[in-house]
């Protein structure tokens, strides 16, 4: 059971993945700001704000559920 108490919560893994995806998508949205893709409503620059949203959710999860040293 000792091992199980130290299991990293699934939320931490979710946070890391969303954080990585958010950074990639936001960066691409900024770099390609003047080269809009051929999609409907591309002028809204959705990669920028959606990437920022992913970063916010990911960072929150990473912060709240990061592995900590056991107090026991």
């Amino acid at each position: 059971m000792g091992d199980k108490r130290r299991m990293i919560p699934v939320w931490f893994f979710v946070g890391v993945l969303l954080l990585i995806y958010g950074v990639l998508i936001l960066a691409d949205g900024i770099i390609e700001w003047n080269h809009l893709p051929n999609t409907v409503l591309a002028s809204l620059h959705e990669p920028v704000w959606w990437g920022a949203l992913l970063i916010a959710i990911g960072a929150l999860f990473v912060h709240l559920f990061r592995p900590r040293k056991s107090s026991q």
Partner: protein
Amino acid sequence: MMHFALVPAVVAGRIISLSPLDLAIIVIYFIAVLGIGFYLRNFAKSGEDFFIAGREMTAWVAGLSFLSANLGSLELLGWAGAAYQYGILAAHWYWLGAIPAMLFLAIIMMPFYYISKTHSVPGYLQLRFDRATSGLSAVTFAVMTILMSGVNMYAMAVVMKVVLGWNIHFSIWVSSLTVGVYVAMGGLFSAIFNEVLQFFLIWLGALLIPILGLVETGGWSGMVARIHKNFPGEDFTHLWRGLGHFTTNPMGIHWTGIIFGLTAVLGMGYWTTDFLVVQRVLAAKDLRSAKMAPIIGAFFKMAVPFIVILPGLLALSVLPYHLVPENAMRPGLHSYNEVLPLMLARYCGPGLLGLGITALVAGFMSGMAGNVSAFATVWTYDIYRVFVRKDAEDSHYVAMGRWCTLIGLVVSIGAAYAVMGFASIMDYVQALFSFFIAPLFGTVILGMLWKRTTGKGAFWGLLAGTLASVGMFLLVKFHPQAISIVALSSHAKAMAEDMYRALWSWLICVGVTVGISLVTKPRPAAELAGLVYGETELPSEGHLPLVKRPIFWAGLAMALLLALQWIFW
């Protein structure tokens, strides 16, 4: 009447071309799930760990996993396509076809599953009845699960080929090997972790479609106006108005089919007795978490039409061409099932497209992981341990579970290749799966709620219900006019037939079970403690504050469900 060209504005041959960023996002996902599986291998050492994830999941993890096990990519693609074909009627499968059943599982059935400490649904039937009833349900479940896994694998590979131009063999082998490796390492831990991951990916990958779609159409009323303009005289946006007769709605179904067939039998059967989903709740850390998990799942399930049904409706309003059924496909056309990728390509550029495709791949892989982990549990505990080797060490069963995971995948791959040669098998396998669910619900619910039910009654009732369902299917297959008997109307369509067939097979199962139980000897009441209503002491929740009681949240979910029916009446 219809002014649209039937030629899509996308490149023929494939719908989406991925950029390097999109590919990077997909590759990162594969690395992440393999890494998590590798990490979790240290935690799946005993049978309890490997098969039931140590029974230590919180209500939220078990609830999201419970929901995600059913939220596979084929489910997403298929129901988005159904929404394009049938309109908002498809939402019945997410609302009335799921929510009452989830709440019923939480409040009424979960105490018996959890208190009996069973590891599976066939396991419960063995505790309640006998090896014969349990064995029948275990063997049927194992075979159907693995066949379904193979059929889904093939269907997804075909979608990947059509949407992305990927090689079918590449899709099948890469995804299967990845799933095999991480489930064999971490067992149900891996499956559940991946399902929670998939839950977030699906929402964040697909949510942009309805948001941008509603921006484009000017909101719900703008979307409805466009649909009326594109499809004059057809009603795609009301849940109940057209259900007074089989001919007044696109699905060819009557409201009795929705209420009695879908809500009372098929939905109840799937969400309360299909071990693929019930296994996730059994992994909860205590009874209250096990009861809260399906309720949490129910709230999110009610929201899923926003990312599945709404894109189908939006496609009816914004796509400048018409989609066609699978059997009417010709080069240059697109089928109903491609509606979600088409909408993804319409709104999402590089990066977001990769996220959306990753969500579909994740849904496919977690669906496969769910199938093989459920198969490994039922095979090892309910078939191998009961009929082959009863008294082995726990480590032996864990090793068997790991091998079963890999063997199950290999058999699934074999089934996928077999399906390639016989495309219509897919329809039969889907139907075969539904044959079993409705009567099984009759057997389990009688076992839980009526202590007079006997093992003989349960076995023969289950068998009679299943055979009757198969018989009705074959009758309509070879004599199509028989649909007026099975589905009560010659105007009924395939979906309506499924609902009524389920209803009749459930009634036959219940009738036979009750009849035989009344003339056979029941088990003594003392042996039924923890298994049957009236013989089980259920923990009181009276001391808990209102907001911590499952019944409070179940009532809230039910009220929300009724409000949705009223809003979209």
